[in-house]
């Protein structure tokens, strides 16, 4: 064995390696501890190897870096904003409903309507409605089904 070859082996020159290995697979010229890192290292994560549900998201995030991460965070923010907006609109509607109910109860027009309803109850029409309810309560489900079908048809055609 020649001395030269031994010295080359002992004293490995990173520069020399780089010159020798200069190729298109290491466009950034990155080396780690004197060893050239090939482009294989920059390969994106194989999604199928990742077993959890967020695999695609993670693969995309790691692949494209900060821009995608900020987009994901932004869209999560949109989701939470959408939920908050829905909750707000639900809360607002319920609040409006409650306010309306309170106003109706405290207003004098409610009492007049109630009084009117008692008058209505004494009419023949109202009696027919209430007696029908008792008959309905005595029916079995198949019979009620037929009654409901008829009623809905009449309502739809009315």
């Amino acid at each position, binding site marked *: 064995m020649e001395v030269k070859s031994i010295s080359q082996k002992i004293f490995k020159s990173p520069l020399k390696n780089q010159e020798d290995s200069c190729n298109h697979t290491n466009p950034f010229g990155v080396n780690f501890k004197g060893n050239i890192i090939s482009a294989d290292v920059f390969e994106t994560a194989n999604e199928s190897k990742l077993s959890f549900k967020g695999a695609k998201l993670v693969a995309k995030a790691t692949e494209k870096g900060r821009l995608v991460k900020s987009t994901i965070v932004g869209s999560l923010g949109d989701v939470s904003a959408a939920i908050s907006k829905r909750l707000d609109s639900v809360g607002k509607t319920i609040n409006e409903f409650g306010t309306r109910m309170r106003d109706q109860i405290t207003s004098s027009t409610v009492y007049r309507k109630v009084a009117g309803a008692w008058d209505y109850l004494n009419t023949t029409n109202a009696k027919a*409605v209430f007696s029908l309810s008792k008959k309905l*309560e005595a029916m079995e489900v198949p019979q009620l089904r037929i009654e409901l079908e008829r009623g809905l048809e009449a*309502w739809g055609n009315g």
Partner: protein
Amino acid sequence: MGERIMNNEKRVSNIIEALAKHEDNTAVEVLEELGTNSSIDEVRRLTAKALIKRNTPDSLAVVISRAGKGINDLSTNVAMSTINELLALKDKSQAMEVLDRVDEADWDENVKETARSVKALMAFS
């Protein structure tokens, strides 16, 4: 003519109520098939209200976990009315159980989201 229409609507309302009160559980199937699938908003609203008043796991599941029905109705008025009825329940335990199940299981994402919102409201009511 107007009076007849009003009486028919009242009659349908009474039939729905009679089904909701019936001890036979097949009444829930009838309400779901004919009531919640109706093209008439008022019918769907009355049916959802009746199913909530019945307050059983089966009846509540119809208005809570089905896409396009009850709290997920495509009509905002019907959906809001259903939510209000749920919030007005004296005994909310069954409803909370159904809402929990929807949240945990593999349901449609919109259905889960609405269930979470309603669950949050019920916790505060």
